């Protein structure tokens, strides 16, 4: 009976923690969602501009669009700094690992988020750079720094492809791990685009945009992932709280039954004792 009482107490305090984490995640989620939404117009406009340039100039090609045979790859993996977020971290990490299963060599890694860094370090990947605690408040300049590392490696021929792994925020309850190729640049043809004057030239403008675009993609990937992390954690903690409630309920039932049983035995003892005397 004492044991059950102790368990009820410990489940109760766990529930308090999970409930608190749920509330914290909810409020962080609201902020993160807003940030993710505000980051999208910039990204969309940039992408549209690049497609326009590529569509209007069919014969043009730059270092960034040429497809080379892929020998070395760079993965930029965005995961969380903390655990306790359901499958959030493991989903995106597993996806990155599955993506290079058929490759001759392991890809180089840029890890964003502590969990990503730890994961790849343990498994002996070559880590180019690792960032912690930047997801909540990533600044455009930080995203640019990360993008510049990747672009310089790509330009020097050290790597032939750059892929970003992140978690798309579909809704508060649904998040989806995704991969997106950054370099070489893929543009799709637009059907109607206006004629434009490019100053000084389409290639020059395009080459200027690519680093911005890469940075914007990383920024978007990070804010989307962060919103997903909060969403995943909130759901996980909500479930944990519900489980704790269910557990407390069944435990108190058990406790009451045990208490009843012990009272009954006591009464029987007394009654049988009394009847033996008379």
């Amino acid at each position, binding site marked *: 009976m004492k044991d059950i009482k102790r368990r009820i107490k410990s489940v109760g305090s766990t529930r308090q923690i999970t409930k608190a984490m749920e509330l914290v995640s909810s409020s962080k989620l609201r902020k993160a969602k807003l940030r993710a939404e505000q980051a999208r117009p910039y990204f969309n406009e940039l992408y549209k501009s690049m497609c326009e340039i590529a569509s209007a100039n069919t014969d043009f090609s730059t270092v960034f669009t040429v497809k080379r045979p892929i020998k070395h790859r760079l993965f930029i993996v965005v995961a969380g700094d903390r655990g306790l977020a359901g499958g959030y971290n493991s989903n995106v990490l597993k996806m990155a690992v599955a993506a290079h299963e058929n490759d001759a060599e392991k890809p180089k890694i840029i890890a964003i988020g502590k969990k990503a860094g730890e994961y790849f370090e343990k498994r002996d990947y070559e880590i180019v750079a690792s960032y912690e605690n930047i997801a909540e408040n990533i600044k455009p300049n930080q995203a640019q720094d990360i993008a510049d590392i990747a672009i310089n490696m790509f330009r020097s021929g050290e790597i032939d492809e750059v892929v970003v792994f992140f978690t798309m925020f579909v809704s508060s309850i649904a998040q989806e791990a995704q991969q997106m190729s950054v370099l070489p640049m893929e543009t799709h043809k637009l059907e109607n685009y206006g004629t434009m*004057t490019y100053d000084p030239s389409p290639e020059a403008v395009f080459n200027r945009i690519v680093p911005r675009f890469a940075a914007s993609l990383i920024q978007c990937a990070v804010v989307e992932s962060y919103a997903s992390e909060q969403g995943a954690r909130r759901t996980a903690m909500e479930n944990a709280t519900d489980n704790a409630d269910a557990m407390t309920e069944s435990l108190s039932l058990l406790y009451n039954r045990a208490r009843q049983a012990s009272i009954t035995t006591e009464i029987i003892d007394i009654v049988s004792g009394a009847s033996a005397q008379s």
Partner: protein
Amino acid sequence: MTPFKLQIITPEKTFFDGETDQIIVRTTVGDVGILNGHEPYCAALGIGQLRVRINGEFRRAATSGGIIKVSKEKTVILAQTCEWADEIDLNRAEAAKSTAEERMKSAKGDNELRMAEAKLRRALNRIDTASFLK
């Protein structure tokens, strides 16, 4: 002057969405002025000042990198960063300037030097833009 629609979008938010009479923007090839009815035009932005004229008065902002796209319906400026002159925190800009200078001294290799230099140029631009107010 006939006003036209202008949108300034940064990676963090839509910074400005409204009407303007004239803008002067620093591109990679120099300052370019845009009035209503400008031909479709697209250029990459450098680090410099953006001037937006609203009701006859210019507002200054510091921008660093991005593109400007002028089309018939509207003008869109996609800027990596954009801050109005009166919103720039001078102390922070000065601090950024000194860290950039230190990093340039201790930089190893071309890449680090280039990154530090860009940081310094951004800081100087913000200081310049902010000091225009005085």
